[in-house]
C-alpha cells in the first residue's frame, strides 16, 4: 500500500509539468493584450506599454518566458499579479480557506442531500418519497447554477426576517456559507442521488444480502452495514471526479454571492489577462485535484477489502 501511495505521489510531477506546459502555451496563444486589459477602453500610452513589457518580460519569445517561469516556480516564486499589484502567493493564501470552506459546505450538501435522498428513494422504491426525490432531482439538475444562485439570493431577501440569511459576502461568519454551499452542491447532489439509488437497488438484489436477511438480521442492519458499503463505491468515484465541478462551479457561485474565493479570482484573472494569477491558481487547483483523486483511490481499499494494491 505504501509503495502504491509513493508511486502515485511521484506521478504528480510529470502530470503537473505537462498541464503547466499546455496551459502556458494556451495562454500565450490566446488573443488579448494584457496591457490594454489594464486600461479598459482607454488608449494605451506608448510609454506605459513599453514599461509593462519591460517589467513582465512580455517581448521575450515563448520558450524563454516559459523557462523563466519554471525557474521562478522552482524557487517557489509564483510571481506578481499585474491586476492586483501584489504577490500571487499572497492572493492564493488569502483565498484558499474561503474556497475550501465553500467546497466543504458544497460537499456537505452533496452528501447529505444526495446520498441521503438516494438511500431513502432506494429503500422506499416507488413510494411517494421516491417520486418526490425524483422530481426534486430533475428540477435541480435543470436549473443552471447561476440561476439557482440568483434565486437563492432573492429567497434570502424575502425571508430576511425569518431566517436572516446573508445575501452575499462572508460577513455573517459560517452562516454565509449556507446558501452558496447549497447552490454549489445542489446540481451534484441530484446526480449523486440517482446514482446512489440505482447502485443501492442493485446491491439489494445481491446474494449476500439475501443471505443476511435469511440470517434474521434487522433490515436496517442489512441495508446500512452490508449493502450500502458496496453501493457507495460508484458514488465515491463520482464524488472524487466531482471535486472539479465543485471548484469550477464555485466560480459562478462565488461571483453571484460575492465571495472572494479562488474560483472567482481565477475567472477575473483570465478576463484581465493576468497570466501570473491564472497560472498560479491553476497549479494549485491541479494539485488539489491530484490529491483528491489519490484519496479517493485509497478510500476504495478501505471500503472494499477485495481491492488491495500490490
Amino acid at each position, binding site marked *: 500500500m505504501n509503495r502504491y501511495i509513493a508511486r502515485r505521489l511521484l506521478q504528480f510531477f510529470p502530470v503537473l509539468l505537462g498541464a503547466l506546459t499546455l496551459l502556458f502555451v494556451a495562454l500565450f496563444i490566446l488573443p488579448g493584450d494584457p496591457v490594454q486589459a489594464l486600461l479598459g477602453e482607454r488608449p494605451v500610452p506608448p*510609454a506605459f506599454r513599453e514599461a509593462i513589457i519591460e517589467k513582465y518580460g512580455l517581448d521575450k519569445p515563448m520558450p524563454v518566458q516559459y523557462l523563466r517561469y519554471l525557474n521562478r516556480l522552482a524557487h517557489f516564486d509564483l510571481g506578481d499579479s499585474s491586476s492586483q499589484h501584489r504577490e500571487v502567493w499572497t492572493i492564493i493564501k488569502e483565498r484558499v480557506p474561503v474556497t475550501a470552506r465553500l467546497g466543504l459546505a458544497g460537499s456537505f450538501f452533496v452528501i447529505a442531500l444526495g446520498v441521503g435522498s438516494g438511500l431513502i428513494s432506494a429503500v422506499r422504491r416507488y413510494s411517494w418519497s421516491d417520486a418526490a426525490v425524483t422530481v426534486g432531482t430533475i428540477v435541480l439538475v435543470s436549473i443552471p447554477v447561476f440561476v439557482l444562485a440568483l434565486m437563492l439570493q432573492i429567497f434570502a431577501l424575502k425571508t430576511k426576517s425569518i431566517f436572516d440569511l446573508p445575501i452575499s459576502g462572508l460577513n455573517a461568519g459560517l452562516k454565509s456559507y449556507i446558501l452558496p454551499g447549497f447552490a454549489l452542491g445542489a446540481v451534484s447532489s441530484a446526480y449523486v442521488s440517482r446514482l446512489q439509488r440505482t447502485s443501492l437497488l442493485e446491491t439489494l438484489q445481491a446474494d449476500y444480502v439475501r443471505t443476511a436477511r435469511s440470517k434474521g438480521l434487522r433490515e436496517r442492519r442489512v441495508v446500512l452495514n452490508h449493502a450500502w458499503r458496496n453501493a457507495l463505491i460508484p458514488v465515491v468515484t463520482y464524488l472524487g471526479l466531482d471535486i472539479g465541478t465543485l471548484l469550477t462551479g464555485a466560480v459562478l457561485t462565488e461571483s453571484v454571492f460575492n465571495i472572494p474565493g479562488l474560483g472567482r479570482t481565477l475567472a477575473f484573472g483570465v478576463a484581465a489577462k493576468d497570466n501570473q494569477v491564472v497560472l498560479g491558481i491553476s497549479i494549485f487547483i491541479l494539485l488539489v485535484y491530484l490529491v483528491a483523486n489519490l484519496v479517493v483511490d485509497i478510500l476504495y481499499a478501505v471500503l472494499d477489502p477485495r481491492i488491495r494494491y500490490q
Partner: protein
Amino acid sequence: MQRKRLFQVFAAALALSLVAAACGGDDGDTGGPDGKAGGSAVTYLGEPDGLSPHLCGTTSCSEPANRIYDSLLEYDWKTAEPVKTGAATDYQVSADGKMVTFQLRKGATFHNGEPVNAEAFIRSYTLTARKDSTSPVAFHLDGIKGFAAMQEGTATTLAGVRQGKDEYEFVIELESANAEFFIRTGHTVFSPIPKVAVKADGTFNPAFNENPVGNGPYMMDGPWKHDVSVKIKKFEGYNGSVPGFLDSIEFKIFGGETALNTAFLEFQGGTIDSSAVPADSFVQAEKDYADSYLEQPTSVLTYLFAKMTAPPMNNVDFRRAISMAIDRDEIVTAVFQGKKVPAKSIVPPVGVPGHRPDVCKYCVFNVDQAKELLAKAGGPKSFEIAFNSGADHESWIAAVAAQLKKNLGIDTKQVGKTPFPDYLKYVESDAFQGLGRLGWAQDFPTIDNWMFPLLHSKSKPPGSNYAQFSNAEFDSVVEKAQQTLDAKERLKLQQQAEDIALDQMPIIPMFYGKSARVYNFAKFATFPLELQSGNPAWEEISIK
C-alpha cells in the same frame, strides 16, 4: 471583450449631482456647517484598481481615495469647478502660462504625522512618472517638464517639479503653455505621498498600496481587504476646511457580472446604506425608493467617428447627412429602454462647467434635410461601420444601420472586431474607411479634455483622434484657449472650438450613459453626489 473592465470604467462612472433633477423630490441640500457629526455608513464599491495615487484610474478607487488623500485642488461637488479646499490654499499661473505656483496649507500632516510639504508632492509625481512604476495614470502628468524623459526611463527625477521659496510652496513647470493645467490637479494622481510609500531606491513600496497613508480627512481603518472591503475612519489630526461629518465609512466591494444586482439586493435587505442601481432595475428602484432615487446622465460619451482620410467620410456634407438621418431618441427608447441619454453636444450635460444644451444642430433628426445634404455630397450608396464586438454594441449599431437604410437608402456593412486592441488596429489601418464606434470618459472637468485629446491634429493615433480630424482653425482656437489665462475668455474659446467641431462633424455624438443611486433616506440628512465623478460626496454627508 473586456466587459468587466468596460462596465467598471464606463457604466458606474460619472454622474450629476444637481438634484432638483428629473426624478424623486430630493433637493440635495448639503450637510453644511449645521450637519450633525458622527455616525457611520456602509456603501457599495467596485474593486479598486489601486489605492496609491499612481495606481488609481477608475471611480472605484477614487471614491475612497478622494477621502484618504487631499489633492492640490479639489473639485466643487456642486459645480465641478476647481476650488481651494485641498492641500493648496492658493495658486498662481504665470503670465506665459508655463508655470503654476501653489501655496500649501501650513501644518497639514499625513495620517502618520509626516508633513505635507512640497517634498511630498515632488515625491508623488516623481514616483508616478517613473517608467518602472508602470502607472496607468501617469499620462495625466504629461506636459510637466521632463515627463517624457521619465517615461522613457532616461531620468529618475522629474525636472518640472520643485520647491518654491520655502517648503510650503510648490512649483510645477510645463513644457509648453497650458493656462488650464491647474484644473488637472484635482485628480487623485496629483495627491502627495509620505516617505513610507517609496523604498530607498525610489521605487514603489507595494505594502503602501495595501494600507495607504494619506493627507485627507479620512484614514484607513485596517488594510484593504481585496474584493471584500475598504474601511476608513475620521483622521482627528486633519486641519483642512472640510473635515467631514461621518465617523467612519465602510466600502463593501462587489465584483463580477452581477455585482450591481447583488449590491442592490443588499440595499433592499438593509445591509448597506447606499448602492448604485443596475440599469435593468432603474424603473423598479424609482418606484420603490422614490424619495432617495437619484438618476443622472454620466459624462461618458458613445460616438461614431468618421475616418476622414478618404471618401466618403472626407465629405463634410456626407457626415452631416448621416448624423441627421439617425434618430437617437428612437434608438435610446427601442434598444436601451431609456437607459441612455441622446447626445445633443460633444461636451456632456454633466460634470463639465460650460456645457451648452442642444448646440449640435446636425444631431437633430431631420430626414428631409439629411436627404438634401446627401444629394449635395453626392455620396456613395454604402460604407462600413466598425465596432468592437462582444461589448453589447451589436444591437444599437444594427439599429443605426437600419435607420440609414430606411431614411437615406444607404447600405452599411457592420464589421465587428475583437479583442479591443485588434479593433483599434483595424480602424487605424488604411483598409478601413467608414464610421467607427468609440467611447470617451473625461479625465478632468474641462471642455479642453473633450476637444484636444479627441480632435486636435496632434492627438492622432497613438492618441485618440481616430477620425484623423485636422482642422487648422480648430487647432488654433484650442491652442489659444490653452494659453488664455482669463477663465471666462478661455471658456468662450473652448465653446467656439466645440462649435467648429459640431459644424464639421468629425465625430457623430450618439449618447451619454445613465447611472442611478439609491440611499437610506431615513438615515441620512443629505446625500449629495459629486458633479465631477458621480460618487457620493462623503465629506458632505451626515446622518439625521
